[in-house]
């Protein structure tokens, strides 16, 4: 691809003022990968300013993965709006933040533009502005709970024990998913264990946890397939749980 063609594509949706600045970022334009120019053009993603040319230098395989993933997870319009985000699309983290906001009823998507708030894509901003809100909301909810009398008849499970049980259950589900994808090597299991350590189990549903863990551990390209397989594993697990429950009830 000739430089002239690269310039034409890269500046297609740029203001005249920005077009005058391309020289400063010419390294990324000149050395940008041809495949990336084509891929981003196909997905209607264009630099909004010359500093965005850097996205053309991403490893093409990785960029393709990011673009497809953002499309499947329904935030590709956010990448069109700020293409520079493609240089660090930590999709597992983005999904985790969305799920956490959903769980805490914190709005993050503009109804008119359908664009997500910046904090969804920015770890620092999220931790600085959203985390305190979540913590405050959690505190309020804890205070609202009525104190319960402690008696041997009304024995409450230890919170740590509950957390451990949830973790064990999730690990079990992860193992089933690993088997589904025939990922049985020790390093696959280790990758899942490490990814699971990063997830806040209390804030997410089982499906959201599994999506975040597998995306983080394997950078899954086909999220739709992953989502379908997770649904199947969860359904099977529920059926088995109910079956065991009924058997116990019958006994």
């Amino acid at each position, binding site marked *: 691809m000739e430089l002239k063609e690269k310039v034409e594509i890269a500046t297609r949706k740029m203001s005249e*003022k920005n077009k005058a*600045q391309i*020289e*400063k*970022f010419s*390294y*990324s334009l000149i*050395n940008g990968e041809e495949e990336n120019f084509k891929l981003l053009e196909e997905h209607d993603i264009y630099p909004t*300013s*010359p*500093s965005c*040319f*850097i*996205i053309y*230098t*991403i*490893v093409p395989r990785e960029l393709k993965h990011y673009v497809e993933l953002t499309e499947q997870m329904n935030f590709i319009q956010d990448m069109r709006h700020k293409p520079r985000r493609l*240089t*660090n699309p*930590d999709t597992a983290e983005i999904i985790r933040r969305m799920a956490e906001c959903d769980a805490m009823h914190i709005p993050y998507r503009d109804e008119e533009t359908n664009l997500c708030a910046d904090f969804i894509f920015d770890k620092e901003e999220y931790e600085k502005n959203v985390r305190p809100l979540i913590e405050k909301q959690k505190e309020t909810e804890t205070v609202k709970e009525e104190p319960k009398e402690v008696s041997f008849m009304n024995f409450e499970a230890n919170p740590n024990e509950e957390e451990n049980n949830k973790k064990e259950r999730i690990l079990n589900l992860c193992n089933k998913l690993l088997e589904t994808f025939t990922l049985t090597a020790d390093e696959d299991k280790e990758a899942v264990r490490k990814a699971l350590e990063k997830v806040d189990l209390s804030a997410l549903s089982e499906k959201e946890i599994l999506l975040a863990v597998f995306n983080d551990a394997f950078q899954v390209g086909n999220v739709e397939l992953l989502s379908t397989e997770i649904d199947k594993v969860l359904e099977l697990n529920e059926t088995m749980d109910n079956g065991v429950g009924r058997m116990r009830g019958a006994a």
Partner: protein
Amino acid sequence: MKFLEKYDFTKDDIDKLIDNTPKKIMNEIKQSQKLVEKNLAYLKDLGITTYVQIFINYPDLFFMDHSNFKDMLDKYEKDSLIAKLNSNFRLIELL
């Protein structure tokens, strides 16, 4: 990226740079270290305190030929340039 420590980059700054920068650009920073350092030092010595953020967000800007890099900054009144870039480092895009 050890050389960045000379310019007071913290470990977090370097991690952020690595996270936000394509491998090709990272390799070029290593390959063109002398040029990058020259531009970085010029920005720092000018009194721009936001040079770390500028580098993290616009690493490919530092591959500019040094004389062009210098000209880009020198065409503005020094104190006003420093004040503007120190209050909003993103203005470097518009110089």
